[in-house]
């Protein structure tokens, strides 16, 4: 078994699910013969044809709504946002229609809305977003955000099989930089379960997506200084894996939350609140956050670098926390 990229892993996952279940189909802008802006669906149109890989007009609310309608009648739509930044155009449809369908009307709505997210790529304010926090207070949705190629495959498969709607964020920085060897067989990684990306004893970093890699890099650097850092990759943000969070807090007693989204209103707040509620007594230091500065993400490299959290930031923050 050879290594494949994060992007190829997603494609492999979608392909396998389309083979397994004829109700799975893809829709989105330019995903057909063209294979999508990032080529995630490359080859699917040739393989599965016009009615299972559908090129749509530019209409995010329309596409998501159509996916919901199809899902009510037994389909399993996988919707691509060309960039996840455009999911904002479907915000009403997702939070009001899709998320509530089961609760208010007993309507099954198993859709996946996926797309390239995240920064560090000089994409500017509208091609670099991390909108996960905007959906965190929407009961009825699930939010997945994998960091490894293995998880990308296993979680997209889990998302497609999930009986409820899943937002699936694919960090575009990882698409071609991260590789992995897929476990054999039907590799499904359940949603809602976090992963220990690195074991450690002095302090814990709780993070997800691209900053998992920055955190691992920081942990490596800190190891040389004698600071042992545990890195928890949340993988799913809704539902959050409380038990994994509690376990690492009880182990190291010091927590740094790291994410790429802006600090104010980001997922870090929710994690901090849960730690307070579930294991406050175990804390030897305040929970602290390393995240983006509170500005729209600018485009020029020196500006983007300044705004986003960097490995050196994590290193400094960990030193502070270890010394607390």
């Amino acid at each position: 078994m050879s290594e494949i990229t994060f992007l190829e892993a997603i494609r492999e996952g979608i392909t396998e699910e389309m083979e397994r279940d004829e109700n799975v189909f893809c829709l989105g802008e330019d995903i057909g013969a063209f294979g999508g802006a990032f080529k995630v669906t490359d080859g699917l149109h040739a393989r599965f044809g016009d009615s299972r890989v559908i090129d749509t007009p530019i209409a995010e609310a329309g596409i998501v709504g159509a996916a919901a309608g199809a899902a009510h009648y037994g389909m399993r739509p996988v919707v691509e946002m060309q960039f996840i930044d455009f999911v904002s155009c479907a915000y009403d449809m997702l939070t009001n229609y899709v998320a509530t369908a089961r609760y208010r009307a007993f309507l099954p709505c198993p859709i996946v809305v996926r797309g390239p997210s995240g920064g560090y790529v000089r994409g500017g304010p509208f091609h670099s977003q991390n909108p996960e926090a905007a959906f965190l207070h929407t009961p009825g949705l699930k939010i997945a955000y994998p960091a490894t190629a293995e998880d990308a495959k296993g979680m997209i498969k889990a998302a497609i099989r999930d009986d409820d709607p899943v937002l699936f964020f694919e960090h575009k920085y990882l698409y071609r930089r991260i590789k992995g060897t897929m476990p054999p067989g039907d590799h499904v990684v359940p949603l809602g379960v976090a992963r220990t990306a690195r074991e450690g004893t002095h302090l814990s970093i709780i993070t997800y997506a691209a900053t998992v890699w920055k955190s691992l890099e920081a942990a490596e650097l800190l190891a040389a200084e004698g600071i042992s850092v545990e890195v928890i990759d949340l993988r799913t943000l809704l539902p959050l894996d409380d038990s994994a969070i509690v376990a690492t807090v009880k182990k190291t007693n010091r927590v740094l939350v790291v994410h790429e989204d802006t600090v104010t209103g980001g997922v870090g707040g929710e994690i901090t609140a849960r730690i307070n509620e579930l294991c406050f007594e175990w804390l030897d230091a305040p929970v602290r956050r390393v995240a983006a500065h509170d500005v729209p993400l600018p485009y020029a490299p020196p500006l983007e670098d300044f705004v986003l959290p960097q490995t050196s930031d994590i290193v400094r923050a960990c030193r502070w926390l270890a010394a607390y």
Partner: protein
Amino acid sequence: MATPDLNASASHGLTREQLLALYRWMRLTRTLEERLVALYRQTKVVGGLFRSLGQEGCAVGSAFALERRDVLSPLLRNLGSMLVKGAEPVEILRQYMAKGDSPTRGRELNIHFGDVEERNFVGQISHLGDMVPVMAGVTLTFKIRGEDRVGLVYVGDGATSTGAFHEGINFAAVQRCPLVVIVENNGYAYSTPTFRQTAARQFIDKAIGYGIPGVRADGNDVLDAYRVTRDAVDNARQGGGVTLIEMLTYRRRGHAEHDNQSYVQPGEIERWAATNDPIDRYVARLTGELGFTTAEVEGVDEEVRTVVDTATDQAEASPPCDGPDALRGVYVEPAAMPRLWYREGVASAVDAHERPESWGTHDV
């Protein structure tokens, strides 16, 4: 008077039973809504009451063109179409009274409910326009699967201004989904007259911009509403794609019961009531060219009254909702959300000492 031969063109190919059924659905709609008004006045309705008085012809005539396997997506003023599609009066009453055995178990209000398993109507949400993309997806499914099924979605004149309407109808048009879109033009969106909603001369002028046929119907003529919808449904069923239908009608009550319609020109409502009521018009037609007796018509009225009475008794006897049920059914898994920490073991959410009406009487 002897029953004349039914003129096939006057009756649009409908049987005698069907012609009388059309009347029954309109009458049932009106009688049921009148009962709701009475219950509303008795404060037994939770929240607002939305009437379709004067618009029963649109809803009933159009839905009558569907088969049971076809899917309907109604809006607030389409109670009649839901009845045609199989909704029971008792369900409507329980919904409005927020009963524990209402179709949504108290989660959603008024006629916001559906049944995609058997009767095939979809529970709407308040956000106008959103059902158009949803129905595009429902009918896309039928197209993909080669199922012989059609969808029908309503929007108001006001809802045509929403982005969701535009995105949904365009998507369906491009995909040639078997979908009929009815713009129910009742002159107003809440207080806003149509000329403030669009500069178009008529709503069917929008059809050409989506590359689909646009047809107008007299929404207060239930047979015309039926005929025009049936043709569009047939066309959709034969692979002809989307049709936009504009039904002309008039909203004789306010947006909801509390709205006093101060924005309506004096005499306008009365004029429509006197000269263009869909039920009056159809009764005249039934007892005129269609050859029904007054007794037949009154028989329906009587039967409908009994149905509504029985349903009211049933609904009034229905149990209220049970608080903790609120936590069930957000996801398949977990089946219920956990109680929050301060609610553990608490029997009733609201204690006797809660006096929300007293808010603001404390010193600030």
